[in-house]
């Protein structure tokens, strides 16, 4: 559940900040969020764990359509993809030259969280019961998310750093108990551009 909340935060806040100027207030940001039709971006994820001296690096990309579709994909070191189109969710990993469907339990867990994501994607980001939000105009502008009771056992704090370029986020920092940390840097972010057909249907 938590991993998907994390993903929800990422996508939700990414969309939320997209299209917003740094001087805009919270209401303007929400309005900009509602104007998003699609987002695509690449990302580099650094996973810092206390037992590793070097962070674990992952690279990937995501595609989002406001009509209710999402493709969240890791390209390395593990190739895996989560596809959501409407109520249908499919998860695959790439092995021995072919895409293989993931275990059922993982699919069900993701389904639970997508309900949370869809809330945010409909402009109801501040209705989340999982996080309290705080907007800091910066520079750089930031959105701080503080977890509520229960979720704070897994996530201490989330910080979204917005780019100087309106509508783009630079990175997301997630702090966990025990010194673990995740940093995701976004690159080549495109807002409201056309998305490849079938991107939400086939791995």
């Amino acid at each position, binding site marked *: 559940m938590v991993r998907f909340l994390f993903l929800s935060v990422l996508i939700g806040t990414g969309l939320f900040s997209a299209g917003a100027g740094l001087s805009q207030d919270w209401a303007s940001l929400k309005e900009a969020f509602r104007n998003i039709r699609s987002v695509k971006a690449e990302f580099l994820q650094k996973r810092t764990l206390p037992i590793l001296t*070097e962070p674990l690096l992952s690279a990937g990309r995501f595609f989002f359509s406001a009509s209710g579709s999402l493709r969240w994909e890791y390209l390395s070191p593990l190739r895996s993809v989560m596809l959501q189109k409407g109520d249908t969710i499919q998860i695959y990993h790439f092995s021995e030259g072919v895409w293989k469907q993931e275990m059922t339990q993982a699919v069900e867990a993701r389904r639970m969280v997508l309900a949370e994501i869809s809330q945010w994607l409909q402009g109801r980001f501040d209705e989340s019961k999982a996080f309290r939000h705080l907007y800091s105009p910066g520079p750089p502008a930031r959105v701080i998310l503080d977890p509520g009771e229960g979720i704070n056992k897994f996530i201490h704090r989330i910080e979204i750093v917005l780019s100087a370029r309106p509508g783009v986020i630079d990175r997301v920092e997630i702090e966990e108990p025990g010194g673990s940390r995740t940093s995701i840097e976004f690159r080549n972010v495109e807002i409201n551009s056309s998305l490849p057909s079938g991107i939400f249907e086939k791995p």
Partner: protein
Amino acid sequence: MIREKGLDICLLGLLIFSTGCVPMAEKVLSHGSPDDLPTCYAIFPAGPWASVHRIEVTLRGGVSSSLLGVTKGEPSERRLHSLLLTPEGFILFDAELREGGIVVRKAVAPFDSPAFASGLMGDVTLLFLAPQARPSIWGKEADGTRICRWEGPGGTRTEIRGSPNEGWRILRRDDQGEVTREIFLNGPLVQGLASYIELRASRPAAYKLRMTLLQAAP
């Protein structure tokens, strides 16, 4: 003619069957000297290490999943710390083996049963920590295959077979001599860790792990 051919097939079948039934312990073994003992430990990391593996788990029926496995080891103290993570980096399982006991720090369903913790840490121990006792037998078969065998508790047995060129296998047998774990290790070794590992478990649950080394550090 037909009868002779049938007899040949029977003899061939008998021969193959007989060969298959010869217990490994009965094969001609050239016993090693004490100087050969280090070979028995060569496939296990000698010093502290930390590693990241890409793991593909395949269960009976072909259902599969991809995960990341992070392990830190301290062989001299027989300590292991293992994590299982999703591709997104979320920790599904976090446990330590120390002083012979397992301490589970975090376990998310369906990885939260004591049986899972015991099984996973048992596999990690078999993979990365050499058996504690001195081998009961070690040496070389006629074809050059090196063998080291340890007797374990309750009649279990751990065996290493192979060669630097052909790769190595670790076999765990139960008290009936049946193989419950078969592990294939293929080089090159990085920080004393095999680059590619395949573990086939047959009991109590059947599954396969294919592990590719992504990071290794002392």
